[in-house]
């Protein structure tokens, strides 16, 4: 069996490990790095529960092999809260009740983050499109869309404060 020397950044930390190259990025995150906030749902790119941010883009970590992340930067849900303080997305989702069973939440929040990085004030339609690769079987999506809108306004206020 082949071995692959993987180097990547995960949540800001440089990681180097020898792995079986047949492992998906999802397997390395969950089983080796124990970042179990990233979920496995369908395992074929339908549900988005395994979404992570790879170099500023949202990807399904079940659809790529870990070696494909070589030299790149991965952000998982664990990379969001700084020093125990929730980030605006997590705050907003909690505030509005956009979380029910919670299984889709990490992927949803990362999808929202990628969207707001490109578009600080998205329309409801743009939000819906941004989370179209993430399935939620509990909320009916209304609260999630609302959560993203609130996150956008929290971010705007925070950035306004930090600029002032």
């Amino acid at each position, binding site marked *: *069996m*082949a071995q*692959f020397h993987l180097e990547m950044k995960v949540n800001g930390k440089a990681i180097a490990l020898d792995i*079986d*190259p*047949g*492992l*998906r990025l999802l*397997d390395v995150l969950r089983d080796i790095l124990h970042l179990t906030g990233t979920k496995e749902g369908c*395992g*074929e*790119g*339908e549900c*988005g529960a395994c*979404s992570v941010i*790879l170099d500023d*883009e*949202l*990807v*399904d970590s*079940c*659809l*790529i*092999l870990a*070696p*494909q992340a*070589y*030299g790149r930067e991965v952000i998982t849900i664990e990379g969001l809260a700084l020093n125990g303080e929730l980030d605006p997305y997590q705050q907003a989702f909690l505030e509005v009740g956009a979380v029910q069973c919670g299984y889709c939440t990490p992927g949803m929040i990362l*999808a929202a983050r*990628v969207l707001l990085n490109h578009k600080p004030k998205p329309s409801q339609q743009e939000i819906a*499109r*941004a989370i*179209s*690769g*993430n399935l939620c079987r509990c909320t009916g999506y209304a609260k999630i869309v609302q959560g993203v809108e609130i996150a956008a306004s929290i971010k705007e206020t925070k950035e306004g404060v930090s600029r002032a």
Partner: protein
Amino acid sequence: MPDLSEYYQPQSLTAALELLAKSNGKLIPLAGGTDIVPAMGKGELKANGLVDLSKLSEIRRISMDDSEIKIGSLTTFAQIETSPLIQAKASLLADAAAAVGSPQIRTTGTIGGNIANASPAADTVTALVTLDAQARLDSIKGSRRVLVSELLCGVGKTNIHPQEIITEITFKIPSTGSKTGFIKLGRRKALAIARMNLAIIVTLDNGKISFARVGLGAVGPNPRRYPVLENSLVGQSPSESLIDEFAIEAEREVTRVLGSRPSAIYKCEAVKGIARDLLKKMFSDSGQGVV
């Protein structure tokens, strides 16, 4: 999990081609991975080893020279969907790329992979065959250019040799005054595999259609052009009745191709709907999709 006995991540195209040449068909090139990775996981695809192309940034770009657009085979659907050049000069391809899977699949999946995977429903392939796009294939021995339509030879089958990689897709920009469009019918808006997709290019000269290209996907084993439908548009002026005649013609063609297959009843009816919707959008004066 696939048990891979070999895994390579070459830093240059030449190195990748050398690996494939030496491997005697044992190594499979890995582009975005969105099709291959789950297929290996389920055991549907057995691979001895992989040549991971992810570091070949030299074939991940979009450019234009004179009258031709060139797209590196590793260009992702998201890059194509958001490219101002593709949006302006070949909006049918931007729309097709935007119709693929989900945002996550579009940031990962590649146009070269979409061709090589040879799915009957491949969204960008329907747009590419309609554009008469060519694929450039490279091997250690040299390169060749083949029409994308001629590269495909059945469900999941292509004429790509085991030592070759698709490196580039090229097509002529539709002539000035052309309108182009793409429509997909899925079971739902996001993530659906196309039940059918349709791409059209028409060039208008003094109010009459002087040139037409029509491609349909998820009808035959691979997306392809339908000359009968193209001929039904040429020489005509855009009108409500032309839209109706075209829809009926499309139904007749799909009926002919599908024969008595179980999906025929649904698809023959459905093609009329997407044909009407797309032509209506293209004939309206919105300026959308005008080259």
